[in-house]
């Protein structure tokens, strides 16, 4: 039944679109098979650049996010400046649109003309993405850390574990379990946002498509690039779903305290 209604809806939508007066022109400029085939190799090569940003950026985001979260959860007056700094960082970069951070980092840093400051759009684009995403991920981690019941800390400290050992061995493993679904969702978002480094001129999938559009006056390369990003995202989206479902099942069986 669900399948039948879905198919019916798809058929109606398809007919409505293909019978519209502008469809032949749209088909030729957005869905041209020959242009698609021609543009595919370059766009796929560009996608490798996006993948590199994704892997390098993703790992850095985990590290910076975790570090920031750890700073925000430090207790005691001695750590107030660090806590404040971490909070200010999170507020700033969670509030700012990624595209603006990309412009500021990507064009601002090279403009300084400093020795040793990288000018590659790949490096600067990755840095901007890491700055923004780490702020999000830090909050995810912090929520996870705070979801671990204080009695777990008390038990660990009563055994003589230090604050660090307690975090590493008792709190973080439990927090990580809780936040894995949220982290995977952020990863899915990151997978498409790596396409934004094209605004700095990095020749990634989006930029390759743009170049080909300019040469052929045909928008099909954008569609190709878009579909490649979708293909990239689908497996992690499914994985996120599966992990979320598993976490929910575990919670319902009431295994955590």
């Amino acid at each position, binding site marked *: 039944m669900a399948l039948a209604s879905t198919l019916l809806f798809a058929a109606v939508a398809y007919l409505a679109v293909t019978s519209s007066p502008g469809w032949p022109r749209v088909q030729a400029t957005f869905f041209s098979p020959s242009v698609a085939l021609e543009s595919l190799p370059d766009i796929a090569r560009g996608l490798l650049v996006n993948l590199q940003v994704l892997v390098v950026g993703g790992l850095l985001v985990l590290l910076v996010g975790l570090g920031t979260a750890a700073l925000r959860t430090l207790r005691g007056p001695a750590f107030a400046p660090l806590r404040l700094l971490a909070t200010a960082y999170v507020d700033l970069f969670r509030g700012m649109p990624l595209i603006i951070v990309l412009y500021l980092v990507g064009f601002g840093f090279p403009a300084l003309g400093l020795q040793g400051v990288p000018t590659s759009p790949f490096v600067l684009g990755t840095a901007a993405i890491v700055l923004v995403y780490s702020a999000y991920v830090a909050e995810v981690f912090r929520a996870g850390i705070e979801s671990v019941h204080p009695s777990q800390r*008390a038990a660990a400290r*009563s055994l003589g*574990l230090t604050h660090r*050992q307690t975090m590493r061995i008792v709190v973080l493993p439990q927090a990580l*379990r809780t936040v894995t679904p949220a982290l995977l969702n952020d990863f899915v978002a990151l997978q498409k946002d790596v396409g934004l480094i094209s605004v700095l001129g990095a020749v990634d999938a989006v930029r390759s498509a743009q170049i080909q559009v300019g040469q052929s006056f045909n928008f099909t390369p954008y569609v190709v690039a878009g579909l490649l990003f979708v293909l990239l995202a689908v497996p992690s989206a499914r994985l996120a779903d599966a992990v979320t479902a598993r976490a929910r099942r575990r919670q319902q069986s009431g295994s955590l*305290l």
Partner: protein
Amino acid sequence: MTVLELRGIVKAFGDDVVLRGVDLAVDEHRVVALIGGSGSGKSTLLRCASLLETVDDGQVLLDGEDVTDPRVDADQVRRRMGVVFQAYNLFPHLSVLDNVTLAPTVVHGRSRAEAVEEARALLDRIGLADKAAEYPDRLSGGQQQRVAIVRALAVRPRVLLLDEVTSALDPELVGEVLSLVREVAAQGMTIVMATHEMGFARQVADTVAFLDGGVLLESGPPAQVLGEPQHPRTRQFLARVIDAGRL
């Protein structure tokens, strides 16, 4: 020889003064039962003694050393005490065996093999050797609490602090935990236990101390404090406990 001594412990949470100068000395191989109504400060006192809370005034002495001195490394002190909580607080992501071997290996630097051997012997003694590889959520409350006691014993503590270790248990599971405590006490462990089990306190404790409104109103041998309480507040409290059918 006095193992644990509390001198004039004062503790407040904001304006709420919970402990108003508590003195308590616990000699080696002795069992002190801490009784008192809910909210009288028993847990807070045990948390101060185990340095899980900082005291506002007074001292905690462990084997004669003032461990509330700010120059003392509290982590070093905590590893010499064992604490068991009302809600077990086992680590849910670690197996029973790993719960028990964690502190011996990570804190005390014993070899994994030695820690595992000792943990298995302890688990065997409480009849849970076959549960070593299980996760805590597969165990009953009574089994979890017995593992928690074994986890505290595995660090070979100077003193064991038990905070109402049977209060969260179904009535039919209380016995197995109490008999383990009895066995540990019989082997000479120094114990301070907050408890509502007056019958147990009468049998096992050397001293019963009654805490009321953050003050130790009276303490002495169980026959005296539970049998002929001097203070009207103690009599009131015990009458309520008798009404609840726990004496």
